């Protein structure tokens, strides 16, 4: 195959050399630590082969935290480079790689795993199910996401990073202008992760449609489950477009076809259209579950039912439909003509209507409530004004003619960070502070949480607010440097300092995880926030079968009314029955490794080797189709023992809200 070993590892950059050493040391460290603690078996049986939705969710969240770190370092490097005019930290090539991986990692490997992780943990609990509809498929989804993320992340030390932007516009991303393999990592790694996401979408559609507790009609379903449901539908509708687009990209780059190239009758704008046909719904895929989390948090800490539940449901369905009809607003400047631009301006602005409805419903949920300023609630509160700024600048950008002056400037960059950070990251933090006790049986420290909150929110506003003004003054995005005469210097410096503050905030979050895991009080109530939905009706951390007896639902906020009426909370032991649970399986993990190896070989354009490795995928599928393991039954005695354990612990535990 003529392997050029000397080009295999990226050399000649001290930053990258440092990372290579750090990665090597970390890997050795992990192996040594697990061996020293004799935890290999535990790791395999409890985590790598698990099909439990809660553990899979926790692993997703772990990937999210790690990728936030990676994407954050990329972001800080960019900010450090542009803090002063003519910065010397990174050269153009390195900067291009950094902003490309920042975008891909933050959207696909940070936001998505965080949200799908929380969906995994919470949705089956909220709807009163024992697991998702297809537990083993769920494990495969996770491991494919993990595999894709790892493949993408090694690119900067082995083979070379993609460098054509997270949008990877052709012809730049094609072989005519990027002849190295860097952009193959983009095509292949995202493909692998995307397959996992598509399966998650299907899995959750079926779970939510088929596995709700008795009495829970769709219109009695908690808002987070609703948003997860609609998100899953958008995933199932839009991810196939990405799959096709990436496949065509792979053909162009690895097999020499001409779908998007300049030569041979290719059409570069076709890529742009396909990319945003997926890319715009993708924004709502990450934002809608976040809206759901805010709804739960705001309702719980205002101690009131969500205001206008029906119009909330209507809004998210409306947003989902509109999300598929606006993609051209990402390239008004392509010259598609005034008719096209007018129509897409209008559809885009229409999104403001359901979003506005949601905003007012949240405000009126708080009205006449009793608002408790827990860390989770602080994130939800900060979301309102910050997201509003993101929203109104979005409307400004939606006005086609005005967009000609904003497009591709830092104004745009500021806008989408004002949408995605309050809309997704704040929500993830709110959700994590809120559901942490449900996942781990202890709270995150509130004091550290508030430090995290203030530093992060102030840092965020300081980083991105100046970018609006820079953009209006003509500063373009993705430029690795600028001259002193441009006058961008002072605001760029403010922005860079803000990014530092934001990063310190995130460090406090990581420290909080560590501190709370070590020192937080374990003797807490299973319902520490006095919450309203079914996930709080069972133990914290949740026992592997979720509910000993599936509760019956008669209204929205089912658990709240169960507590109020003191009905359906307790059950007698003779009501218990054996529980049917799915067995663990190592196949998803093994399959993801095969996917990863095959993908890696394909990235390096070793086509025959990749094909041979891909046969492994087919073998795994064959093994799975001959797998007759039907799961196992949990005996009643075991259930009784587990239930007695947590239900009697609760005595004397004080509530964590007052």
């Amino acid at each position, binding site marked *: 195959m003529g392997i050029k070993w000397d080009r295999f590892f990226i050399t*000649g950059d001290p930053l990258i050399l440092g990372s290579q050493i750090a990665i090597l040391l970390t890997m050795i460290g992990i192996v040594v630590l697990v061996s020293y603690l004799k935890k290999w078996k535990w790791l395999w049986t409890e985590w790598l082969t698990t099909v439990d939705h809660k553990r899979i969710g926790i692993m997703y969240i772990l990937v999210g935290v790690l990728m936030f770190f990676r994407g954050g370092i990329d972001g800080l490097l960019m900010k450090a480079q542009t803090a002063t005019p003519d910065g010397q930290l990174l050269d153009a*090539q390195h900067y291009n790689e950094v902003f490309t991986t920042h975008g891909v990692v933050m959207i696909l490997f940070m936001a998505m795993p965080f949200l799908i992780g929380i969906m995994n943990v919470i949705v089956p609990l909220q709807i009163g199910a024992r697991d998702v509809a297809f537990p083993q498929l769920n494990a495969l989804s996770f491991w494919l996401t993990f595999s894709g993320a790892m493949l993408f992340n090694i690119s900067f030390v082995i*083979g070379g*990073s993609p460098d*054509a932007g997270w949008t990877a*516009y*052709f*012809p*730049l991303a094609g072989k*005519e*202008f990027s*002849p*190295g*393999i860097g952009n193959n990592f983009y095509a292949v790694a995202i493909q692998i992760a995307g397959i996992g996401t598509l399966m998650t979408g299907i899995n959750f559609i079926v779970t939510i449609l088929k596995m709700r507790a008795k009495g829970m009609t769709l219109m009695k379903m908690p808002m987070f489950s609703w948003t997860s449901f609609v998100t899953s539908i958008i995933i199932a509708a839009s991810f196939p477009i990405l799959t096709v687009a990436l496949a065509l990209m792979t053909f162009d780059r690895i097999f*020499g076809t001409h779908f998007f*190239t*300049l*030569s*041979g009758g290719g*059409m*570069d*704008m076709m890529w742009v259209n396909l990319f945003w046909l997926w890319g715009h719904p993708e924004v709502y895929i990450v934002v809608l579950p976040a809206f759901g989390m805010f709804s739960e948090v705001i309702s719980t800490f205002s*101690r*009131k039912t969500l205001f*206008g539940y029906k119009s909330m449901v209507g809004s998210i369905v409306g947003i989902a439909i509109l999300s598929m009809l606006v993609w051209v607003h990402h*390239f008004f*400047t*392509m*010259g598609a003509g005034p008719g096209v631009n*007018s129509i897409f*301006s*209008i559809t885009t602005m229409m999104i*403001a209507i359901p979003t*506005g409805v949601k*905003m*007012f419903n949240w*405000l009126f949920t708080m009205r*006449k409530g*009793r*608002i*408790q*300023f827990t860390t989770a609630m602080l994130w939800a509160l900060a979301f*309102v*004004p910050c997201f*509003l700024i993101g929203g*109104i600048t979005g*409307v*400004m950008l939606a006005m*086609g*003619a*005005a*967009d*000609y002056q904003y*497009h591709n400037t830092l104004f745009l960059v500021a806008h989408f960070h004002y949408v995605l950070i309050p809309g997704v990251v704040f929500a993830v933090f709110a959700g994590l502070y809120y559901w942490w006790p449900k996942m781990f049986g202890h709270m995150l420290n509130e004091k550290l949480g508030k430090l995290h909150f*203030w530093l992060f*929110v102030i840092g965020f506003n300081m980083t991105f*607010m100046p970018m609006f003004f820079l953009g209006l003054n*003509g500063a373009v*995005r993705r430029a690795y440097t600028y001259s002193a005469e441009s006058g961008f210097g002072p605001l760029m410096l403010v922005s860079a300092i803000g990014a530092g503050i934001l990063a310190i905030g995130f460090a406090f979050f990581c420290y909080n995880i560590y501190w709370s895991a070590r020192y937080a009080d374990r003797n807490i109530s299973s319902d520490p926030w006095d919450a309203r939905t079914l996930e709080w009706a069972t133990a914290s951390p949740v026992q592997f079968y979720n509910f000993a007896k599936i509760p019956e639902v008669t209204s929205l906020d089912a658990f709240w009314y169960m507590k109020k009426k003191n009905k359906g909370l307790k059950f007698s032991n003779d009501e218990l029955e054996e529980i049917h649970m799915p067995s663990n399986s190592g196949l998803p993990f093994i399959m993801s490794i095969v996917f990863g190896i095959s993908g890696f070989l394909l990235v390096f354009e070793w086509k025959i080797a990749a094909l041979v490795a891909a046969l492994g995928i087919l073998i795994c599928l064959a093994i799975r189709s001959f797998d007759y393991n039907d799961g196992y039954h949990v005996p009643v005695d075991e259930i009784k023992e587990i239930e007695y354990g947590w239900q009697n612990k609760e005595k004397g535990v004080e509530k964590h809200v*007052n």
Partner: protein
Amino acid sequence: MFKKNHLAPLLALLPVLLLSGCDSNMVVFEPKGPVAREILGLINWSLVFMLLIVVVVFGLFGYIVWKYRARPDNKDYEPPEEHGSTKLEIIWTAIPILIVIALTIPTVNTIYKLEKVPEGYENKKPITINVTSADWKWIFSYPEQGIETVNYVNIPVGTPVKFKLTSAGTMQSFWVPALGGQKYTMNKMETQLYLVADHPGEYLGKNTNFNGKGYADMEFTVESKSQQAFDKWVKDVKKTAPKLTEKKYIDLLKPTHLGRLTFSNNHLAWVNHGDMNSKTYTFPELYRNHDYPGQIFKQPDNQKNKAGKTDDKSMDMNMKMDGHSNGGEHNGH
């Protein structure tokens, strides 16, 4: 607990800052021609509504969070059961609809206006300039004057300029913020943009669409001169500037940074990259990086191929696509 209450007024300051942009010297707010002024009018119109929304929502938010905060003395307060209010929900669906309508009408109006010669200049004969973007430079051809410049463009003041935009390679975006909005340049396509400078002066133009290593330095200058000065400049160029040859032109298209160049003829004589059937001028081997080298494929319609060796299949495809483009906004779309 009380800390939260400082957040609202603090954040309320942000849009005020945003709006203070109107009277600063940011380039978008300092238009130097009718096109940019038209867009600024639309931007200012939208800012009024945005300010209104921000004031209302921030005010409501601050009021609600302050009034209904948990205090030790309302510990026993039990919030009412309240599921919604049809009247209120209709109101806050209707208001955004009205705002969207108020924004849509001038937006659509402006979108259509920007496609034509700006108002008040209809009677002036426009001058045509072909813009060709390449990695990483801007090439300006004057078909009427028969000259060509690189990285700067001189235009007569007060005369509408019809820029015909295309690219020799990557997709780029042509933007002169002081004069008007931007538009993409794409290979084998042609887009059009009308701009007018109504003051003499020098304006910075740039590429906003990322196109690789040299992207950040892809700037050019637009100099608007009086008609006499412009005519004199054209005459001087004709007399003194060197001739561009095809060979030299191909060198020019290679990925390099260049200063200003001037030629007394233009490349439209042998290629117009906006033409759907033009040859491809790419140099993949010059884009090698520190990443692992991948395979480079044969390009059926590359200019380096010997005449007649063009792949028949791809030619067919080009012809077919060209057939579809009748009546489109630009070729091949």
